[in-house]
């Protein structure tokens, strides 16, 4: 039964998505990238978010996105200690617990920091720029879609949300060719 270990883990992942809805609300992550970048933005430019007691949220913004839906994002940026933000902050703690609980062999497989012995050391930019640019396009796309793998694909599809199905189809339509092209480029580049 050892090869069925994936099944138990998949059931655990599904149970967590269900438990989140049972206790509070569906899991979502990408909105908090907008919140945190908005916190930094409003720290630099204090005029971007202002209080407006006439609104239900109590806040308004000169930025159309922060101001959307009656200033919901403006409110979250001004008062970030809410469910969604704390939820995202707890993710790395939980992941670290799982990482620490696992054996060393699996840990070394999970790491991408290691280099092949004898391989030329890549420059700082070459190692970290692709991840940075990837993160940029992933979050730009996720915010445009108003959700990511967690919010649209997992939480959305489990509720039978039509937008979740469209997001998953669109994401895989470019992700599969991108992954195949990236491999070919890596082989040609002698990496």
């Amino acid at each position: 039964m050892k090869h069925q270990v994936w099944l138990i883990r998949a059931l655990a992942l599904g149970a967590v998505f269900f438990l989140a809805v049972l206790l509070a609300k569906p899991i979502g992550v990408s909105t908090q990238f907008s919140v945190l970048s908005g916190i930094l933005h409003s720290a630099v430019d204090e005029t971007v978010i202002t209080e407006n007691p006439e609104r239900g949220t109590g806040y308004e913004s000169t930025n159309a996105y922060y101001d959307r839906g009656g200033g919901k994002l403006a409110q979250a940026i001004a008062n970030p200690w809410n469910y969604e933000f704390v939820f995202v902050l707890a993710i790395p703690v939980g992941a670290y617990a799982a990482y620490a609980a696992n054996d060393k062999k699996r840990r070394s497989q999970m790491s991408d920091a290691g280099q092949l012995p004898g391989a030329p050391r890549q420059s700082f930019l070459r190692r970290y720029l692709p991840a940075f640019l990837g993160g940029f396009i992933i979050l730009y796309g996720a915010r445009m879609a108003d959700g990511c793998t967690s919010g649209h694909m997992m939480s959305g599809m489990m509720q039978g949300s039509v937008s979740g199905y469209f997001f998953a189809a669109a994401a895989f339509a470019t992700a599969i060719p991108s992954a195949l092209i990236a491999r070919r480029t890596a082989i040609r580049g002698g990496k």
Partner: protein
Amino acid sequence: MDIVLAIISGLLFGYALYLVGATSPKKIVSMLRLEDLTLMKTIVLAIGFASILLSLFSMPGLLNIGHLSVKTMNLGVITGGLLFGIGFGTVGTCPGTCVAATSSGGARKAVSAVLGGLLGAWAFSMTYGWWSSVGLFSVMDWGKLTLFHISDKFPSVFSLGYAGLLIVGILFVISALILPGGRGDPS
């Protein structure tokens, strides 16, 4: 109380993401190259199992329907998804998994992705007004449409309720079991 629930569910989510291997860009990329479909099986099974639990708890009224939350459908979901996929396929990470990976192996690349993500999210905030003005979010605006009638809050494609979601959940679980792979994890 909200904060305690947030901490509990965030911890569990981070733990589960690591457990299934989703924090590893290598595993995501090998799924997308269709080399090892274990992670695909995991995702499909997890969605199906969550749907089944949701249906079984909702039918006898054991779940507060007010907790459900569905996202709006519009053209931005498709164009955003297409953009998302380019990064997802090239780098092998997504918003949840790169946050989880900052503490669990491959930390430096994960932090690079998180920083890039913060800049990307901010860039979207700055350009949202323009996208909105050209009508990206008003084309295919079907509202918070769901397949089945799970709540009076959302319009649905079919009038069938949780029984429909239960059937789809079971179909997802069967598909996950049929998909090849599942022996790829040597741990």
